[in-house]
């Protein structure tokens, strides 16, 4: 996600970096391109206009400081302005002092309310909460069935009243059930509605009044264009909400809506939804997202995931091995299995910084299937072979390829790759120990 925008901005920046010092014309030219990139990313027209003015104000007359070149300073300014546009701080989800905490999800048709309700329930269950889902969408055919079936899959409580046509009463009754049965969180899924449909907006106001939710979330499709701001402003003015859930960010949406809504409504983005799976809802970190847009990669998220998946002691031992050039194919296998714990390869790679000049398809060869094949090959080796691949001769190679369902060529390729990787790792570990990059969780990063 955001990839297109970040690639564009990086191209602009790398052009900028080529200049030792900048004159006004060069800054102007770069900002013109920044403007185009933002507009193409669906950032609201007015937001772009204000942003460019702000950046220009700050960028004109930047001087070379000891640590930064003018180009770097301009990049820093753009970064800072983008971060402040998305909100400086991560706004954590809060709970009411007296249970149950009530969340209500609202939004246009098709923005992903019902799916987000289930994902939020999953997220909260993992936090140790015991949520109850209320199906208050009485209009869309089978919307109630959808939420009921999702709640069964999740194993969480569910409330609906198929006979009622009053969603305020349904919601109230749902909360009553939650209170008596000890659910500490209630999530109310409401019908999709157009922000200009007064009748439907009145209805949701009634629901809100009846249940006074602790937090109301507006669910917004990340692929929304310039209208995102109109929608959010209308929902804020007519109903008011506390934060946003941004859905469908796992595609190639550049997410300009995310930037714009926060800038115009002042409402923070609380969660982003990144996939088909139930566990694809993540807390939104504005600074990380801005870094990601600027192509610095979401290294913080990656490190956090790595910390969860990787045993620190094992990692330290591994690092030692690498430094001493004792890294074996067996260690390689263990590493791969750890990476797999962090999520799908695509997800992990998506979080890494993209270097300007790196070919677009540089990482294309690394896919799940490829990794499975490598795993199979290594697993078909004896321990001795894993520790000392040099002993692998023709007949051993044939045995390994047969055992793993691959060809001798594949085995050869892996061995060659491994030797190359080892060389690279040597360089990397030399570099990192010199540069003192701080706490290192795994040699892989």
């Amino acid at each position, binding site marked *: 996600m955001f990839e297109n925008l970040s690639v564009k901005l990086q191209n602009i920046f790398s052009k900028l970096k080529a200049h030792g010092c900048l004159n006004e014309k060069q800054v102007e030219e770069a900002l013109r391109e920044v403007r*185009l990139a933002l*507009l*193409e*990313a*669906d950032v609201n*027209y007015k937001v772009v206009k204000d942003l460019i003015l702000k950046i220009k104000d700050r960028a004109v007359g930047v001087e070379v400081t000891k640590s930064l070149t003018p180009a770097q300073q301009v990049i820093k300014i753009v970064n800072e302005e983008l971060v402040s546009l998305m909100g400086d701080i991560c706004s954590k989800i809060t709970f009411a002092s007296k249970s149950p905490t009530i969340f209500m999800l609202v939004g*246009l*048709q*098709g*923005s*992903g309310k019902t*799916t987000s309700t289930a994902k939020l329930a999953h997220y909260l269950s993992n936090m140790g909460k015991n949520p109850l889902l209320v199906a208050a969408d009485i209009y*869309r*055919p*089978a*919307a109630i*069935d*959808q*939420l*009921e*079936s*999702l709640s069964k*899959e999740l194993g969480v409580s569910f409330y609906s009243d198929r006979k009622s046509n009053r969603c305020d009463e349904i919601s109230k009754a749902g909360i009553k059930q939650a209170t008596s049965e000890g659910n500490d969180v209630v999530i109310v899924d409401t019908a999709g509605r*157009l*922000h*200009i449909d007064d009748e439907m907006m009145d209805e949701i106001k009634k629901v809100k009044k009846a249940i006074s939710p602790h937090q109301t979330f507006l669910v917004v*499709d990340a*692929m*929304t*264009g*310039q*209208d*995102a701001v*109109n*929608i959010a402003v*209308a929902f804020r003015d007519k109903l008011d909400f506390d934060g946003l859930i941004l859905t*469908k960010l*796992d*595609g*190639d*949406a*550049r997410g*300009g*809506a995310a930037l714009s809504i926060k800038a115009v409504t002042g409402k923070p983005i609380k969660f982003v939804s990144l996939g*088909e799976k139930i566990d694809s809802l993540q807390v939104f970190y504005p600074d990380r997202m801005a870094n990601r847009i600027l192509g610095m990669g979401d290294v913080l998220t990656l490190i956090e995931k790595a910390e969860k998946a990787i045993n620190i002691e094992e990692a330290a031992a591994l690092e030692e091995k690498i430094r001493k050039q004792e890294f074996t194919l067996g260690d390689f296998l263990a590493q791969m299995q750890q990476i797999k714990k962090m999520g799908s390869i695509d997800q992990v790679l998506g979080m890494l910084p993209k270097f300007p000049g790196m070919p677009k398809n540089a990482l294309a060869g690394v896919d799940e299937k490829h990794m499975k094949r490598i795993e199979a090959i290594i697993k078909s080796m004896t321990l001795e072979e894993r520790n000392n691949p040099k002993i692998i001769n023709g007949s051993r190679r044939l045995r390994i390829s047969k055992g793993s369902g691959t060809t001798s060529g594949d085995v050869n390729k892996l061995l060659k790759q491994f030797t190359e990787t080892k060389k690279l790792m040597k360089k990397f570990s030399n570099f990192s120990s010199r540069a003192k990059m701080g706490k290192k969780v795994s040699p892989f990063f």
Partner: protein
Amino acid sequence: MLSKLKNGLRKNNKGLISQITGLFSGGSIDENFWEHMEEILIRADIGIHATSKIVEELQKRAKDLNIKDVEELKGLFKNEMIKIITVENGALIEDDSLNVVIMVGVNGVGKTTTIAKMAYKFIESGKKTLLVAADTFRAAAIEQLQEWGKRLDVEVVKHQRGGDPAAVVFDAIGAAHARGTDIVLVDTAGRLHTNVDLMEELKKIKRVALRETTEGAVKTVLVMDATTGQNGIFQAKLFNDALGLDAIILTKLDGTAKGGIVVAIEDELKIPIWFIGIGEHPNDLQVFKPKEFVEAILE
């Protein structure tokens, strides 16, 4: 028909209409005028690329024809827009033979609802119609289509949730042949165009449909939400690359979104637009007419 479309669009696109009439209501053609035009087009989601193209073309014409008056420019503007969104296309539904329409699109664009509206239209015009629940992924998607089947009194072919969608389509076409059905409407699961595996699944559905029918009977239609921004271009491109699109249907034009993404898409891809959805009622699904569309926006 025209007046209904106009009313629909007038209601929906109030912002854009008043902006454009404002733009053409007088004054001189200067830097501010062009900037204003650019702003209006970008805010309608027409996108920076198509917008620059339109503005540059008009600037050139204004210079060549020595146009000083903004009123005169209005006609040129209209023609330019019409030129971009006009795509020659053959009939999408053929009479006296089986038609299979596969509806595809990203999640939440309104595929199922649009299928219900189309079914209503086809049934009204005397076509024997069959609905196919090939969204076997989303919870209660099958139930949703079944509910529509009940309301419209039309048969729905379905399997279990989690089943192979291509198999449902296979069965449905078999049933359609046996019963002399005119139109088979296939509801597929919403999927992001970047999800390679799910796009492969659609290709398989199409392969099966082509194998079970005669040449030209299968049409693949992309459903797109009018609130979609520039990502719509990627959606159209990737679905087109994977499946070869025969048409686009633009939904939810009854909000405040202008649906200008259509202009950007047509500028690049030239895929005919079949219907536009401008309201909840089945009659609010209307055949797209470029000239009327632009006129309704401008008048």
